[in-house]
Each structure stands twice: as structure tokens, then as C-alpha cells.
């Protein structure tokens, strides 16, 4: 309660103070409405500011992980498609070998061998498949292709290192397949060998066909070698498929997290319009009331009533 004695300075000071406070609250509300934000500087809400900053950095990281996962998906899909095609080629070779082993085809063996050679070159080309300018079977080597186009020998720059993509905090996916696990170890025997890489196996088949070599170490061993190569490829392909599913999971998880984070940031930073508008209405009438009362209180004094 005010003191018993009221001086004019005191009355104006009190009214002025109250009016200033009311106006400041009004301006604050107007600012919130016009910007749609309720945090302008850390002191508006220190704890919420830290949470906003953390959420924002999580969101940015999440967006980046999404891009990484999309890149991973590209690598894995490329490998998957390549190996599906490669396996149909191997199956064709398998059919050709069976035809070539048939005694009635003796005169056609050179033609069959030519066909095998063509398929071999196609498979080497598949082995040189690239994704976004990177040879997918070349490890992390700095090279545009994996294999020599004619011999099928891995290039010197090719290595067996993993290409990794971080897709979440602490979660890294290996998105490539190296040339050895996909195509077998290249040995380099002239004329090819059934114990070497896929391309050497095909070279040996072609050689055996041209030489009419149907012995146990000749064409007889070809089918076993082809089956081994196809199995090897099958393992790599199913691994790529499993990883693709994992990437899909990561992407959908990412999408959920993205929504959650945006929601959380909006909860913290954005204004609850209905509430603020109501506050503004109340504050406006408060301010107007304060103005009119002040105008009435300050004006009159005894001077007006004395002659």
C-alpha cells in the first residue's frame, strides 16, 4: 500500500512505470507474433536454447546420414544389378560348355569358343561397372576401372579395402565388394586355369574347346569351376541384398527421426499462436485501461477548483 502522503512526482513516476511495463509486455507479444518465434536470444530460455542447438545439430547430421545412405543404396543396387546380369552370362557359358562336351558338336567347338570369348569380354566389362565415377569392384583404388579389358587381370591401383558409408551415429556400412570375393583370385596362368578367377576359367574353357580337350583336367572340370564362380557371386549378391534392406531400414528410421526432430525444434522455438493471440488481446485491453486511468488520475488538481 502506498504511503499516506502522495506527492505529484510520485504519482507520475508510478503511473509511468506501470505504463512502461504494460507497453513492454505488449511489444514482446507483438514481436513473438510477427516473427512466430519465442526464443530470440539464449537468455529468453537458456535450457531450451541448448536443446534447440542440440536438436538442430542432430537434424543436420541426420540429413547428412540420409544422403550417405542414399549413396550407399546406389552402390549396393549397382552391385546387385551387375551380379544378376553376370550370373545369367555364367549360365549361358554353362549351357555352351554342355553343348561343347557333346561329341556331335566337335565341328562347332571353335564357334562355341568364340561365343565364350564374347561372353568373357562382356563379363570383364561388367567387372568394370562404375557408380558415380567409381569402379565398384576396385576397392578404394584411385582408378576408373577394375580389370584389364582383355586379360581380366586386376589393375595395379585396385585394392581390397572397404568402401564405407556412415549411415547413423556409430553405424557404418560396407557398400562395395572387392574383386577377389566377387570374381576369384587372378593367378595369371597363360591360356587360363580352372583354379583362377572367373575370367581365367572362361579363358581356359575357350582354350579347351579350341583344343578339343575333354579330359578330366580339361572341359570336364569346367562345370565345377563355373558353379564355384557362380556360388561366390551369389554370396556377394545376397550380402548386397541384405545390406540394401538395412539401408531401407536406416532411411525410414531417418525419416521418422527427421520428423521427430523438426517437431521438437518447433515445439521449443515456435510460438503457440492461439495462446499468444489471447495473451495479446488481454494485454491490449490492460494497456488501454491503464492509459485511460492514468489520463484521468494525472490531470486534475486542486488548482482547477480554486478560484
Amino acid at each position, binding site marked *: 500500500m*502506498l*504511503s*499516506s*502522503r*502522495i*506527492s*505529484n*512526482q*510520485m504519482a507520475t*513516476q*508510478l503511473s509511468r*512505470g506501470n505504463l512502461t511495463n504494460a507497453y513492454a509486455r505488449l511489444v514482446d507479444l507483438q514481436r513473438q507474433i510477427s516473427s512466430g518465434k519465442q*526464443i530470440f*536470444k*539464449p*537468455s*529468453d*530460455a*537458456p*535450457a531450451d*536454447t*541448448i536443446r*534447440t*542447438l*542440440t536438436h*538442430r*545439430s542432430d537434424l*543436420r*547430421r541426420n*540429413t*547428412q546420414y540420409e*544422403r*550417405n545412405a542414399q*549413396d550407399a543404396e546406389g552402390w549396393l543396387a549397382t552391385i546387385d544389378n551387375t551380379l544378376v546380369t553376370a550370373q545369367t552370362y555364367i549360365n549361358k557359358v554353362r549351357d555352351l560348355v554342355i553343348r561343347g562336351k557333346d561329341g556331335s558338336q566337335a565341328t562347332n567347338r571353335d564357334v562355341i569358343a568364340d561365343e565364350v570369348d564374347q561372353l568373357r569380354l562382356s563379363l570383364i566389362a561388367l567387372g568394370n561397372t562404375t557408380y*558415380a*565415377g*567409381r569402379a565398384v569392384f576396385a*576397392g*578404394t*583404388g*584411385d582408378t576408373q576401372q577394375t580389370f584389364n579389358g582383355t586379360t581380366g587381370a586386376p589393375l595395379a*591401383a585396385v*585394392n581390397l*579395402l*572397404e*568402401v*564405407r*558409408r*556412415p549411415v547413423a*551415429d556409430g553405424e*557404418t556400412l560396407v557398400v562395395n565388394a572387392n574383386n577377389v570375393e566377387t570374381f576369384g583370385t587372378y593367378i595369371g596362368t597363360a591360356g587360363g586355369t580352372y583354379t583362377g578367377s572367373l575370367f581365367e576359367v572362361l579363358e581356359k574353357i575357350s582354350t579347351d574347346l579350341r583344343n578339343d580337350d575333354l579330359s578330366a583336367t580339361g572341359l570336364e572340370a569346367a562345370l565345377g569351376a563355373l558353379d564355384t564362380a557362380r556360388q561366390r557371386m551369389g554370396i556377394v549378391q545376397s550380402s548386397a541384398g541384405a545390406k540394401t534392406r538395412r539401408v531401407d531400414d536406416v532411411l525410414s528410421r531417418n525419416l521418422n527421426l527427421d520428423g521427430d526432430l523438426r517437431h521438437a525444434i518447433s515445439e521449443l*522455438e515456435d510460438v503457440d499462436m492461439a495462446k499468444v493471440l489471447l495473451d495479446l488481446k488481454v494485454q491490449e485491453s490492460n494497456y488501454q485501461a491503464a492509459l485511460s486511468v492514468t489520463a484521468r488520475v494525472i490531470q486534475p*488538481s*486542486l*488548482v482547477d477548483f*480554486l478560484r
Partner: protein
Amino acid sequence: MSDFAGLNIALSGLLAHRRASEIIGNNISNANTEGYSRQRVDLTPATMGPVGAVFSRSRNVGEGVRIAAVTRARDILLERRHLAESGHQAGYQTIQEMTGLLEGIFNEPNDSGLAAQLGDLWANWHDVGTDPTNLGARSALLAKADQVAATLRKAATDLTSLRDEVLTKMQTMVDEVNGKLDRVAELNERIATAVGSGLHPNDLMDQRDLLVEELGEQIGVQAFEGPAGTVNLSVNGISVVNGNAAMHLSAPAAVAPPGGSPLAAVGWNEYVITQGPFRVTFARGEAAGLMDTMNDLLPRYLRDLNGVANTLVTDVNALHTTGWGLGEGGPVPARNFWDPAGTTALTIGLDAAVVGQPSRVAASGNPNSLDGYIAQALAALSSSATGADREYQTMVGELGVESQAAIQRVAIQGGIVEQVDVERKAVSGVSIDEEMINLTIAQQAYNASARVVSVIDEMLDTLMRMAL
């Protein structure tokens, strides 16, 4: 008792009430004057004294009215409380202003603040890790890193120049304060002289008290009543005005901080103000806020910012030196990303070896390789619990808490100051209604005294006619 004594009595009434109406006029004129204390005329009956002269014959009627004193209406307790509370308020307001400026320097939360830039930087490392052959991504990374460094340097420069501005402000204020201390001492002397001559130097006292009040807000002086209406002032126990003698504060000087002080490490000095052989520390007033800003607030945040820069440089270089650039083979080039000499916010910058050389950014963990392992490991620093991001976020949070506390403190203290001020003005402020009533009373009394004169005149007239 002469026959004309009645006229004298009426005259004293006329004079006293004319003087009273003058004082009331003065009060009304000063209704809006800051620091003015309303004045009151103390009237007292004039008597001939308990012992009359030898030939006087007192009729015990009285000799009219006399002005005993013109006094200032002031409550000394409230004045002193107001001095102390407004001093605290001025100190708090300074701190609030400074933390507000700091918030402006860091400008968070914001899509373009340092937190956002750091996030972008880590995202750029991800891009380089995903596609190490992409020179565009590498250039973007270098540009972003340069921007982060520039932002850090800008913030550090802003802190430094803010310190300089505060120092200048403090020096100017000390000069002003010294002038005011002189004037208080001078007014003290004039007041003492006037009081010694039996006068009431109310206006001088008001002037002096206004100065004291300003000094209270500036340097938080405490006032003590001295003899003969004077006031002595002291700052936190050190006397600055004693009667008619004023001491001077010397402008803040940088002193080497005591050994082991962390301030030395970041190139800050502690500032002190001295008065003769004494070191003046301010407990309140704007000076307390400014000195706190220079000696604690700004150094603390610069130190935190340096910590962020240091973590960034150290963490990134530790990994970067273990990697290979694009198309590089052979032994590890052991190249730094940040200039290892610049581990403060003011000196952070890219290493000369990578500036303009995007292919030299060591993204790979193996020679002649496109693995991007190092870039990926660097990108993972963004979620490190001890990384630069977290350090910076913590710092911003601390600033927010400190600034919010300052705002609340000012609001609370503002309430207290207002309360005391209102109570003070209730005693010493002018109320026009009250003055009008007093004026009416004085007017009526004057009129009545004049009436007494004319009645006595008529009586004397009657007496004269008898003589005819």
C-alpha cells in the same frame, strides 16, 4: 507597550505569511525538479523572552509571529537506503547490458550462427568422405572451414573491442566522478559556512544531495552525516570525501595479473582503480558492473571461446595428420588442416599447406586410395561429447543462464528501488493539492492580518477624533 504595538503584531503576521506563500510558490515551481526536497516554514510565536528589560511591562500578550526555520522535508534513513539500492541497481543494469551485448556477439540460436556453421562444416567432411575425388566438395569444405575460422575471429575481436569500449567508458566516468567529488567537497564547505552563520542553505544541500545520489549510482558511495550539515563519502570503506577535502580516483590501469592467473593466458589484464595508496574495489554502482565486465565477464567468455577454437584445431589436426590427400602415395604427408600455431579464437586459421589446395585435404586413411576414412572419422567428431560443438553449446547455454539471471536481478532490484524511491518522494516530494491548501491558509492569514491593521487603524482614528 506602545499604542502602536498592535500594528507591529499585525505586520509580523503579514510578513510571515507572505514569506510562507513565497516558499509555497517555490515548492510548486520545483514540483518536477529532480532532487528537490519540499520546504516548510516553521512559524513560532514571537515573545519578549522570559526576562523583560528593566522598564518593560509585559502584558503577556505576545509579540506576533516569527519564522523559526525553513526546513527540508527529508527522511535520512530512506535517503540512505535509496542511495544503496540504486547503487546496486546501476551495477546490475551494467551487467545486464553487457551480457545482452555478448548474446548479440554470439547471435544464437540462429541459422547462420557458429553452431550452424560447425554443423555445415562436419556435413562437408561427410561429402568429402563419400566422394573424395570431388574437388568441388573439397573446395566447399575449405571455404566453410575458412568461414568458421572467420566467425570465431570476429567474435574474439568483438569481445576485445567491447573490452576496450568498457575501459574507455570507465576512464571517462572516473574523470567525471572526480569532478563531482570536488563539487561535493566545495558544497560541503559552503554549507558549513552558511550553517555556522545561522542560515538554512537548503538549496545547496539539495544540490549536494543530488550529486551524492549520482555518485551512488556511478561508484556506489556511502554517505555519512558530518558536522554542520556536511556529508562524508566513502567507497567500500575507503574515504573519498571528508568535509571540504576530496580525494581523487585514478583511471583504471592494467596491472599484471598475479602469477598463475588464467587471464594472462588469453592476453587479458586485470584492471584496478586506485586512490592514493589504496586499491578501490567497487561493491555496487555502474563502476562495479564495468570492472566486473572487464575483469571477469569478458575474459571468461573469451577463454571459453578459445577453448572451442583449441578443441577444433587439436581434434581435427590429430586426425588430419594421419591421412593422405587426393592422388597421394608414399609415407603419410602428416599435413595439418588448421594452422597449429593458431589455437585461440583470435588466431585460428587454415594451415598454409591446404589453403587453395583442395586436393591436399587428407580425406583418405591409405596412400593412393579413395577410402575417405579420415574424412568420415572427422565428420563423426560432430557428435563427440567432448567436441567443439558441445563446448560451444555449453558456452551459449551458460551465457543464456547468466544473462537471464542478470535480467531477473535487474527486475527484482528495480522493484526495490522503486519502492524506496516512492517512499522517499512521499516524504520529500511536492504535492500540488497540499501546497494549494497551504497557500489558501497563508492567503487567509495574510488577509486577516491586513484586516487587523485596518481595525487598529480605525481604533486609532477614533482616538484621534476624540482629541479634536
